[in-house]
Structures are given as structure tokens and as C-alpha cells.
């Protein structure tokens, strides 16, 4: 009896150890980028699509373009989008394209340490290699600015950064985006933008207790938006119930004006002014096609 117990304990420990070993070692590896020389103009479009400016620029605080953002309050703590200008000390001027790709596709800093998912690499991993190279080229056109943002103030237990490794193992699904051949080109483009660079899902999909997106409730909104904002549901059902057409969605993304005569404020106001108003009309329509599809 005692012997059986001991054996069971050993098995439990070993398998527990095995699970832990897996969780701490199997987070997705950075994708190796295979692309032509990046194009800064195309990359500027990718930057707009990805909404980099809103989180990495503090225009009110007078920091330069992409030189670090204002506080982002989340249920997991307060975060500051870092300086991503080409400054070699305080920005990302000493990085290689591959370092940059590791950040976007695997949520890893050049020293291998994991980033908090408030940096939406779970979405940016859907970018393809060329888009990443183009975005990198675009970032080189930004004026280097020195100075760092304040340190993040993260609540326990995630203040222990190493816990993000098992988080990545469990919740980071590596890209790039794979089109669904059953669906139209516009639908696929919309799905890519909403789940990928546009990272709409990051605010509009509620999170579970681990801080991972609850995909069973995709785009259902919630009360935990940036700064405690209420985030509306943008499922096809919710949008149709409120009378949004494809044209209404595309127009709202361009101008901020909703069909009820109100203009977006808060974080969505920033999304429009920093990102979606600069997109091609075809991309705004693609987003609408995807959001309204069942």
C-alpha cells in the first residue's frame, strides 16, 4: 500500500515536472524572416494598420513620435508603450530586423525575455514576413528620440516576468495568417486585419482569468477596456441589432461618426484618428465584411 503511494507520488511529481518543463520551454520560437528589402512606404501603411502610434506616442506629454506612450491602465496593471524610435540607447536603434521579428512573432525581447501581451504580439504574429520587413524599414524613417518611459507597474503574479513564458506556450498561436479558401478575399482580408495587425480583438474580445482572449466570446465586448472603458460588442449579431450596415462601419472607421449621429471618443477615437482613417477604403470595407459575417 505504502509502496503504491510512493510510486504514485513519484509519477505525479515526474509528470508535474514534465508539464512544467513543457510550459517553460515550449513557447513559440521567433519566426525567421525571409523577405525582400523592406519598403518604408508600404511599411508606413502597415504601421497605420497596426495602430503603433496610439500606444507608443504620448502627444500630450510632448514626447516625440513613437518615443513612448502614455499610461495604459489594464486589469493586470499599468503599462507604458516603450520608445521605439531608432535611438540606439533608449529606442530600438541597436536592434536587427530579426530582433524586431522576434518581438512581433514571439513576444520576445532581444535578450529572450518575454513581453507582456498588452503588446499585442498575439495579433501581430499574423503579419507575413514581407510586412514585418516593410514595417521595420518604416520605423527607420522616424526621428531618434532619447528617453525611456516609466517602468510598468504590474500586479501579482504577473510581476514575475518568467510566468509569461508558460503563458506564451499556452496562448500564443504563431502566424502568419492562413486564409480560409472557403471565404471571399474581402472576408479573409478583414479577418486578417481584425485578428491581426488591427488587433480589434485585443480590446473587443473579453479575457479569461489568465488574461488570454476568451475565443468562445470573440468580439463580445466587456467592461475592461483601456482605463476601465466599457467596450461594445461588435459581433455580427450585435452590430445588426443596432442597425450597422457595411457602409456604416466603413464610414465610422473613416470618420468616427456612428449611424446614431455620435462620434467615437475614448480609445476608439484614437483608433480612428491614428489608424483606420488612413486605411484604404477597401480595407475598411473588408473589416466591415468580416465583422458582419456569420
Amino acid at each position, binding site marked *: 500500500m505504502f509502496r503504491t503511494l510512493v510510486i504514485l507520488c513519484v509519477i505525479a511529481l515526474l509528470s508535474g515536472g514534465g508539464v512544467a518543463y513543457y510550459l517553460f520551454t515550449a513557447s513559440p520560437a521567433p519566426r525567421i524572416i525571409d523577405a525582400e528589402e523592406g519598403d518604408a512606404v508600404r511599411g508606413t501603411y502597415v504601421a497605420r494598420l497596426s495602430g503603433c502610434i496610439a500606444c507608443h506616442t504620448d502627444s500630450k506629454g510632448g514626447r516625440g*513620435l513613437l518615443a513612448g506612450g502614455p499610461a495604459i491602465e489594464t486589469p493586470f496593471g499599468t503599462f507604458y508603450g516603450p520608445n521605439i524610435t531608432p535611438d540606439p540607447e533608449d529606442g530600438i536603434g541597436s536592434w536587427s530586423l530579426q530582433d524586431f521579428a522576434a518581438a512581433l512573432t514571439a513576444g520576445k525581447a532581444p535578450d529572450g525575455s518575454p513581453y507582456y501581451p498588452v503588446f499585442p504580439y498575439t495579433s501581430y504574429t499574423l503579419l507575413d514576413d514581407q510586412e514585418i520587413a516593410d514595417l521595420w524599414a518604416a520605423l527607420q524613417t522616424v526621428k531618434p528620440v532619447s528617453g525611456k518611459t516609466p517602468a510598468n507597474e504590474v500586479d501579482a503574479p504577473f510581476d514575475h516576468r518568467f510566468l509569461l513564458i508558460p503563458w506564451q506556450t499556452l496562448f500564443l498561436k504563431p502566424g502568419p495568417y492562413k486564409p480560409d479558401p472557403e471565404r471571399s478575399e474581402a472576408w479573409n482580408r478583414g479577418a486578417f486585419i481584425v485578428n491581426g495587425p488591427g488587433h480589434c480583438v485585443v480590446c473587443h474580445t473579453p479575457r479569461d482569468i489568465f488574461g488570454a482572449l476568451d475565443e468562445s466570446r470573440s468580439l463580445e465586448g466587456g467592461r475592461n477596456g483601456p482605463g476601465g472603458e*466599457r467596450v461594445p460588442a461588435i459581433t455580427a449579431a450585435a452590430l445588426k441589432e443596432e442597425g450597422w450596415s457595411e*457602409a456604416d462601419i466603413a464610414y465610422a472607421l473613416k*470618420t468616427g461618426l456612428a449611424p446614431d*449621429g455620435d462620434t*467615437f471618443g475614448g480609445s476608439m477615437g484614437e483608433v480612428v484618428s491614428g489608424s483606420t482613417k488612413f486605411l484604404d477604403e477597401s480595407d475598411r470595407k473588408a473589416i466591415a465584411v468580416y465583422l458582419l459575417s456569420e
Partner: protein
Amino acid sequence: MQAKPGFTRLTAIALVGSAILLGTLQVDRVLADEDPDIKARIAMMKENGKAMKVLAPMFKGKVAYDAMAVREAAATIKKNGGSELTKLFPEGSLSDKSYALPSIWQDWPQFARLSDDMTLYAAGLMEAANNPRIPDDNVLEGADTLGNQGATLGDADKAPTAPRDPLQLAELSPDISFTALLETCGTCHTEFRKDD
């Protein structure tokens, strides 16, 4: 289908009772939100929203463009901007009903400027209402460096804005003023309005 007299009386009593109760609740609500400035500015924003609902379908191309209707709706927004709006925001006028953020009084010059812009661009829209439309889909992008060929991310903070000269606005397409008006609404709501 004749109801029993007792039932009718009971129903009547219940109805009157509910009406009184509802009335009381209603009064409570009004009392709780007595601040006349807050009430007035909420009503004013609703009026602006209504005017926008007239304007937007025309600029979206959903309904036929009607210059007279544009002028009328723009006039409403014009009269509601400037000091007519800012005077309804005395320092610290916040309540549960109000969506105003305290940042209004931390950055009053910007708040006042946006309020002036509201009148500026609504007036521009009135003056330009009869001008030819720009059917081009990219009115907004056309006003931004990033939308122009060859511009890169480094220029992202150098985007030119719509002119602030009323005479110039009056010469341009109404779409320019309307777009600038929408940007003004959006900027103010982004910086100074709590989104629940």
C-alpha cells in the same frame, strides 16, 4: 368579454398606484440631476447628434445631397459651438449623468479651441454647402501626408489640417468642412469625454 367590476376597480387602483410611483421615481431622477448646466449640455449634444444624423447620410451618399438641409443642420451645430458650449462647463461640473472628464479644466484652452472649431467648421459647411462636391473617396486621406505617395512614418506627426480661414473654407468643397467638423467632434470626445 365583460370584466368583473371588482377586477376593474382593482386594476384601476393598481394603475393609479403605479402611475404615482413612476411619477415619484421620475421626479427623483430629475432632482438627482438638477444641475441645469449638465442638463442643458446633454440636451445640446443630443441636438448636435440629430443634426449629424441629417448630414451624415448625405455625405455618405446614402441619400441625395440637399444644400438647404445641409445649411440648416450646420446652422444648429454652429450656434451650439464656441462660448455657447463652453459656458455650460463651469469648473468641476461633473455628475453621474455627465460624461465630461475633469481633463476639460486641466486643458481648458484646448477644450475652448475645439469648441470654437466646431463653430468655425459648421459655419464653413454652411458657406460651402452649394459648392461642388468632391466625389473622391479619399477626402480625408488627401489632407494627410501619409496618404500622399512617398510619405513615410517619420512624417506621421506632420499631417496638415484643414484651413482655419472662414473665407478659404467657403471656397472649398463642403466635404472639407464636414470632415474637419467630424474630426473636431472626435478629438473632443477622445480627449474630454468618458466613454462609460
